[in-house]
Structures are given as C-alpha cells and as structure tokens.
C-alpha cells in the first residue's frame, strides 16, 4: 500500500513535474470547454488549422528574435479571424478557406526555418510539445489566458449557445451573431496558443476534440458535456503524465492517447449510446 502511495507521489516531488501537471490540466480543461463548441459546429478542421498556421508566426518570431509564444499567438488569432472573414464573404467554401489560410501559414514557417542555420530545437518543441519544459512564467501565462477564456464563455454562454444551435433565429432575436462567431474563433485561437507548448502543433487538435466527444456520449445537455469533458481532459493530463514518467515516453503523446482511450471506452460502454449497449439491446430484443 505504502509502495503504491509512494509510486503515485513520486513524480510530483519534482518541481518541473508540478509545473507540467498544472499547465497540462489547465490546458485540457479549457480545451474541453471550447472544444465542445468545436465538435458541435463541425469545426475540427479549424482546430487543426490554427496550430499549424501559428507555426508561421512562431518561425517569424524566432528569426527576428521575438518571443515565440507571442508570434504564435498573433498568427493563430490572425488566422482565426481571416478564416471567419473569408467564410462570411461566402464566395469560397468554409473548409476551402481554412485549407488555404492555414497551409500558407505553415508553409511560411517551414520556409523561414529552412533559412535558419544551426540549432532550431526551440522550434521543434512547438511541433511536438514540451510540457516537461514549461517555466513558471509559462504556467502563469496559461492560468491568466485560461481564466480569461473560461470567463468569456461563462459570460456569453447564452449567446454562444443560441448562435451555435440556431444562428438565424439568434440573429432575428437580436443576438450579435457575427460578433459571437468571430469571438468563438478568437477563443479557439487563444486556446490553441496556451495548448501549443503543452501539446505541440500536431496534437493540439486531440485535446479540443477527444474529451468533449467522450462527454457527448455520456450527457444530454451542453453544460454537463463541458463539465464531463473538462474532467476527462484533466484525468487524461494526469494519467498521461504518469505514463510519461514511468514509461519514459513523450508526455503530450501519452496525454492524447489517454484521452482517446477514454473516448473508445465511452464509445463502447456509454449507457444507451455505446456500441455494446446497442448490441445487447438488439440481442435481448430478438431473444
């Protein structure tokens, strides 16, 4: 028993693991709340596009010697807003607009990196994530931005919900629908910014999608879906860090695989909606 307690406690005796845990849990919770809108509106492609596009900003900041996070943040927000702008013009399809904007940003990043001679390890921590390397400054930045995002969703919950569910009627009743749509894109952009260092460009999408998708199978309304999604995200962060510590593997990959593991469990066993549940129902009916 004491042995088990010791194993559970050991990782958190190191300060870098404490920082990693705070950052990863926070990012997962925020990503689950914002990600609920992402999966309900079929915006997963945007969740993938923003982190990739932000690489352009990170690379520019790297070349010019600016703060890399700031570069990524500016690029993610600009991409989010320009996707919204092009899509609202209506002359090209939404997913086409996303594809063109995000791949331009990512290609720009690769182009700039190819001009840099020597060691570009800082940049690669953005591609694959480096949760074990977060500083206290990063943690406080994550706390601040994360709190801002959650407060914004709480304040405008009613309007975001109405706009997501029925934009026409929302507009007819006087909800500022365009502002809400841009606002949601900006919130996704900010979430991507805080998630980048923890998860890396390639894996940010997983935390926006897997925990809320798990929660959707277990709940009937949006508020509990966000809450359960946040819980699944936090547990994935915790579980993933344990796996990373004891198996000595990539932390971001372990977090993502824990989250997708939760999803498949729900997919199979969710009461009423899981695969096995449906099969058992069919069997008892035919018996």
């Amino acid at each position, binding site marked *: 028993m004491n042995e088990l307690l010791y194993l559970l406690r050991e990782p958190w005796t190191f300060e870098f693991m404490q920082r990693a845990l705070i950052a990863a849990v926070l990012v997962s919770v925020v990503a689950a709340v914002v990600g609920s809108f992402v999966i309900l509106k079929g915006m997963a492609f945007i969740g993938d596009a923003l982190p990739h596009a932000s690489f352009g900003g990170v690379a520019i900041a790297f070349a010019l010697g600016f703060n890399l996070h700031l570069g990524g943040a500016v690029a993610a927000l600009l991409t989010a807003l320009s996707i919204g702008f092009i899509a609202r013009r209506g002359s090209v399809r939404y997913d086409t607009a996303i594809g063109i904007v995000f791949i331009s940003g990512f290609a720009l990043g690769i182009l700039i990196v190819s001009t840099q001679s020597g060691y570009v390890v800082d940049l690669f921590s953005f591609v694959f994530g480096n949760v074990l390397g977060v500083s206290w400054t990063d943690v406080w930045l994550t706390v601040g931005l994360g709190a801002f995002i959650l407060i914004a969703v709480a304040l405008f919950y009613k309007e975001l919900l109405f706009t997501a569910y*029925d934009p*026409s009627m929302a*507009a007819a009743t006087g909800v500022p629908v365009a502002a809400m749509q841009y606002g949601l894109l900006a919130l996704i952009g900010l979430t991507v910014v805080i998630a980048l260092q923890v998860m890396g460009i390639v894996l940010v999408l997983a935390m926006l999608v897997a925990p809320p998708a798990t929660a959707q199978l277990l709940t009937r*309304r949006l508020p509990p879906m966000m809450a359960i999604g946040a819980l699944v995200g936090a547990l994935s962060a915790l579980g993933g860090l344990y796996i990373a510590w004891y198996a000595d593997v990539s932390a971001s990959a372990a977090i993502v695989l824990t989250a997708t593991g939760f999803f498949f469990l729900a997919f199979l066993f969710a009461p009423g909606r899981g695969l096995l549940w449906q099969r058992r129902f069919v069997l008892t009916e035919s018996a």
Partner: protein
Amino acid sequence: MPDNSPAFVPAVEVRNLSAGYNGHVALEDVTFSVERGCLAGLVGPNGSGKSTLLRVMLGLHKPWRGEVRISGPPGRSGRGHIGYMPQSELVDWSFPITVVDVVLMGRYGRVGLIRRPGGRDREIAMAALERVHLAHLAQRRIGELSGGEQRRMLIARALAQEADLVLLDEPLAGLDATAQHDLLRLLEELRREDKTLFVATHDLSCVAANFDHAVLLNRKVVAFGRPSEVFTEQLLAAAFQRHLLVLPGGERTLVGP
C-alpha cells in the same frame, strides 16, 4: 375586400419589396398585407422566393428596396417579436439540448446580453410547452422527439417569445396525416387567440381548406386574397407555369396536378 372595413388591422405590411442575392433577383416589387389574427398561406413553386421573403421579414436579409412594417400592440412592435419556425431540415436535431432549453431561447431577446433567464422566463417557457401539450417532454433531448413534437416545440418557442406574428417555413412537410391534422388544429387555436400565422407551404389543398388568406408568389405577387379567389386555374397556372387542377368539393377544395 376587407381593406375598407374599419376592423382590418394589418399585422404585417409588405410594400414594394425587392430583394435578391449577388445580382440575382429573388423578389420583385412584392406588396401585400396580412390581417391580424388570421392564418395566411404563402404558396408558390420552388425558387419562387418564399424563403427569401421570410428572411427579409425576419430582418435576416437586407432588401434592395421597399419595406416591411410589423405592427403589434403599442410598444411591442418590431422585429424582435416575430416568431419563426425554420424548415425542419435546417434545424440541428443532434445538438445536445433539451426541449425546454430551446423554448427558453424564445426569451433570450427580452433577457438581454450576458444576463441569464430567470424564474419568470422559465415559467413562461413551461406555460408555452403546456400550451402545445409538450410539458411532459420538457427534459427530453430534442433528437428524441417525433416529427410532430419537433414542430410543436418550435411553436412553443415562438409562444415563449410572446410573438404576435409567427412565420412558419413548411411546418407540415414530412409529417404523417395525424400529425399534420394535430398541427393544423393547434394553428387554428392560436389564430383564435389573436396570433397571426404566416405559413410558407407547398400544400395547396390544405391552404384552400383551412386558411383565411393566401399569397401566391412567383418572384412577384401573382395573387393575394381569400384562397377561393386566389386558387383559380388561371392564377395557379400563372404562378406555377403549368396547369393545375382545382376541384371545388364543398368543404374541401383539392388542388393538384
């Protein structure tokens, strides 16, 4: 014509309205009015501008010319008080939201930005659900409703909005005969409660049998008046560009190809 009688109070007046998308004309010089407390049908072939007209009336699409005047009790007129039932296939029925949540959205315009709907709003939403006989399904997920229940929920949202004018886009489409009958009964009850219902539909026979007014639309208003005046073979042929048979049969008039 009722226009001369002093009792005629228009709930909505549309004057010289022209509208379209990217240079394509969808509505041309449309003028008509709908009397308060009546059930009016908007009929016309596909692409005749029915949905565009509803969108302009709701304030979702800016017209090129002309105006839509909505009248209601003093201090209550204006666009925020128009109820709307969208076409069923435009509603996301997989959205994780309960029946009462959707009805509560009818209150959002009055609650205002950021503020939360209160106990009074919930009471009004529940009363609206009782009015359409759905109170027992208030906590259901919307995806679990039958076709007829879905339409009644959207009517309850308009009632919760305390809308005097409700625009309905194809409310009868895709319902079985019993559900259609129940929905029509509900619309007739609401008309008696002085609600004005403006219904875009493809069901000409239903309009002929049950409605007070009909607007026959094909980009322009082809005819406007009582269904018996509007549904003549000449006018229908002008609107639909093909011959339709009108069979007046006492209580029920059948219209078909």
